[in-house]
């Protein structure tokens, strides 16, 4: 029996690999398991290679897992294209289509001898029992149920529901294929059985991906306007909005380009509505000027950047965390705007609500820096109690203020009540040009300096926010990890490993990346002797950003590498260990630079 199972499957687009993964995921979720699924594709539009990785556990799942427990290859050409995304190890059970003609002892896996290998006539079984090769993904599900005990109840129930509209024949054909695969599994037992233990208790769970979670949160927060331009991997946010936003009296427009995509949202915000746009790196580059406009005009706006590999088109279907500098610095003039990063599907909800709140409260564009992995992976989440979440609306001028309205009145907080067209007495000129308190254009240097001060001062309370940082482990531990975005889930597992390994370690997960909350960071790093800032970018952008604002302890280094190469908990611990050894050498007077 095992408590955790990582299954990776690959085939050609059209093989139904991803829908098999989804069926397994919903089945496992309905059986009460914690589950996560990531998908990975080549960048072809149709066909090409496609894969998914499903992790099932009796404990909460923090990341997609490392080396596979089960590898399913419909053909080896496609499987091997995923390289490090679907690593096979000595403990892996390999199942593959016997038609591919590879002998079990001649697998094209270099330097690895898997635990067990099963060439299975997947196509033939599908054809014989369901009457069509298309059912080979159902055969796979039957094998997984038979060998690992996952989805034996849920898969058929899910299929029945999904195929209900297409008449009983199709479901019955799939049921026969599934049963045949179960029989096949029992006739060819695993040498070392490893069924997944039953889940501890059946909790009603949510199952969705980060993009849908983010969009649902926007609706919850009162978003009434969405405009954008399709771009992978953020498009599902617009697709969700296209289904839902109208129901709430809101509107959506798919724009002609990324600039119009943010422009229309800026207009809607000026008109007094909560507005959002979503994009990925290339779109962010195009939106930079409009973000500056929203900053100087002090208009609330939420901008989602679902990061993918860059620069330019880069790796459009793979995850990376290399847009932090862009989020912080892509502006001319002096600009600061809040940047928030979710770390999983579940926290995408609360953090998106937070983004709307910040935008409204401080009248500023706010960037949500998600990433491809979070946005497109599906995972089970515990129910979210929305009654604990605050929803903030922008401060509007009262009748007295409208008597002599100054849109950009200097106030103690830096926030001035904001009117909108339709409000009598609130008329003003919003502009990209510098303005005085009334909103009238000015080229006066003194006024410009004061307005810059106002725009920075109003964000100051953010620097004192402690609730947007989570520290795991003993807060006084001398060894530290820092990780943001999707890397945080791997780091949490690494922390548990390190602790089990006897290391006194802690982990900082920041949700607010900018403005840099100096107090939260300083207190975390106090007493830290050595540590790693783990992130998926070539430069280690958070590490460099933090060094702009604070002095990191000498032993804290960057552990960074380019996207599409997910970190594994074990290697993080190993790296931390090496760091400690270096530190010891350091004290002996022999510096080791990494």
């Amino acid at each position, binding site marked *: 029996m095992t408590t955790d199972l990582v299954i990776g499957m690959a085939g050609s687009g059209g093989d139904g690999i991803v829908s098999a993964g989804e069926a397994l995921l919903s089945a496992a*979720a*309905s059986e009460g398991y914690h589950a996560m699924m990531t998908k990975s594709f080549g960048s072809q539009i149709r066909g090409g290679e496609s894969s998914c990785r499903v992790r099932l556990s009796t404990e909460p799942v923090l990341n997609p897992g490392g080396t596979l427990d089960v590898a399913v290859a419909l053909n080896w050409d496609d499987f091997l294209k995923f390289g490090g995304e679907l690593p096979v190890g000595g403990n892996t059970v390999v199942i593959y289509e016997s038609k591919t003609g590879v002998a079990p002892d001649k697998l094209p896996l270099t330097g690895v001898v898997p635990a067990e290998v099963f060439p299975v006539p997947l196509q033939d079984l599908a054809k014989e029992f369901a009457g069509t090769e298309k059912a080979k993904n159902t055969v796979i599900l039957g094998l997984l149920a038979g060998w690992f005990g996952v989805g034996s109840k849920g898969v058929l129930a899910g299929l029945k529901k999904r195929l209900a509209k297409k008449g009983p024949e199709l479901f019955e054909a799939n049921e026969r294929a599934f049963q045949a695969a179960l029989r096949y599994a029992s006739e060819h037992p695993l040498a070392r059985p490893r069924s997944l233990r039953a889940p501890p208790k059946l909790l009603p*769970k*949510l199952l*969705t991906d980060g993009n849908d*979670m983010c969009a*649902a949160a926007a*609706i*919850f927060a*009162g978003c*009434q*306007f969405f405009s954008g331009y399709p771009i992978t991997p953020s498009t599902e946010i617009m697709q969700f909005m296209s289904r839902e936003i*109208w*129901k*709430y*009296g*809101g*509107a959506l*427009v798919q*724009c*002609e*380009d990324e*600039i*119009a*995509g943010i*422009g*229309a949202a*800026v*207009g*809607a*915000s*000026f*008109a*007094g*509505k909560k*507005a959002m746009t979503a994009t990925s790196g290339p779109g962010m580059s195009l939106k930079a000027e*409009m973000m500056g*406009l929203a900053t100087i*005009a002090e208009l609330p706006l939420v901008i989602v950047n679902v990061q993918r590999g860059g620069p330019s088109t880069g790796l459009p279907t793979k995850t990376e965390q290399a847009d932090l500098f862009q989020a912080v610095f892509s502006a001319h003039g002096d600009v600061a705007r809040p940047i928030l990063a979710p770390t999983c599907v579940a926290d995408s*909800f609360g953090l998106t609500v937070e983004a709307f709140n910040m935008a409204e409260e401080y009248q500023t564009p706010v960037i949500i820096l998600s990433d491809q992995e979070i946005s497109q992976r599906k995972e*089970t989440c515990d*129910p*979210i109690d*929305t*009654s604990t979440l605050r929803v903030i609306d922008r401060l509007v001028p009262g009748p007295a203020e409208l008597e002599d309205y100054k849109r950009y009145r200097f106030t103690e907080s830096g926030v001035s009540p904001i009117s*909108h*067209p*339709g*409000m*009598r*007495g*609130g*008329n*003003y*000129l*919003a*502009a*990209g040009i510098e303005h005085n308190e009334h909103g*009238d*254009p000015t080229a006066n240097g003194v006024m410009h300096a004061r307005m810059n001060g106002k725009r920075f001062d109003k964000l100051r309370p953010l620097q004192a926010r402690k609730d947007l940082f989570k520290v795991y482990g003993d807060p006084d531990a001398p060894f530290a990890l820092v990780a943001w975005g999707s890397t945080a889930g791997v780091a949490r597992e690494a922390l548990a490993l390190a602790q089990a390994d006897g290391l006194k370690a802690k982990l900082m997960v920041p949700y607010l990346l900018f403005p840099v909350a100096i107090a939260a960071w300083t207190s975390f790093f106090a007493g830290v002797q050595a540590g790693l800032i783990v992130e998926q970018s070539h430069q280690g952008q958070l590490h460099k950003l933090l060094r702009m604002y604070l002095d990191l302890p000498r032993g804290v280094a960057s552990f960074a590498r380019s996207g599409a190469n997910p970190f594994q908990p074990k290697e993080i611990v190993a790296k931390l260990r090496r760091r400690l050894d270096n530190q010891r050498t350091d004290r002996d007077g022999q510096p080791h630079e990494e």
Partner: protein
Amino acid sequence: MTLTAKDFKSDLKPIWCPGCGDFGVVQAMYRALAAIGRPPHEIAFVSGIGCSSRIPGYTTAYGFNSVHGRALPIAQGIKLARPQLLVLAAGGDGDGFSIGGGHVPHAIRRNMDITYVVMDNQIYGLTKGQLSPTSPRGLQTVTSVGGSLEQPINPLLYVLAYGAGFVAQGTPADMAGLTSIIEEAIRYPGFAFVNVQSPCVTYGREDQQIKAHREQMKTLVSLGHDATNMADALARAQHYGSELYTGVFYKNPEPPQTFEAQARERQTQLGPSARPRDRILDMFRQH
């Protein structure tokens, strides 16, 4: 309360050069808005960047002097978010047909009820006299030394070809005509385009100043033009650059439904199926 032109004039002093055609355009706007009768706070007036894009600040409406070339996306966001507003957009020929040219076709095909006024002077004035997208071939400017090598854009054909429901041209040389064109454009229930031949007194050609316009202009009405006939409109519009026709080139006699009206229908139709906002997550439940 009856509104007069003065109610729409703000206290800001225009930065325009004395003799600029844009003074006439803003005057015509004040008069047209007074005739329409909506109070200033129900009007949103959006522009991009350029001399003419300063115009919202010279009115008492809610103004938005945004970034170069982007008046139309912002105006559409405003209109869709709050359809009851009267939404105006304005700017120069460079703003509308060069840097912002990509937005024009899409504003037209979306057909929101927005009036877009372009002050066309065939030159970049704010940056002091460079080539514009409507500058005639051969024009000598500081960036086209030896003469422009490019064919100019014909704004009238451009918008007609994309299906604009209302297309007109005016000049401040005929204030009564310009005022009535702008008023008619605002009253048109859909996207309306007005090209104003608004001379640049500093960098413009001497033979294209207001005085010359008075002699050159021919009203379409006097020519017996039928503004409901697209083919006639296209034929007349081809003479942009050689003839100064003023008046309405085309006005769709059967205006199609606007984007915002369809949006409203969709909201009404789908509204009843909305989950309460705080129950939005129910759609992700597994049981």
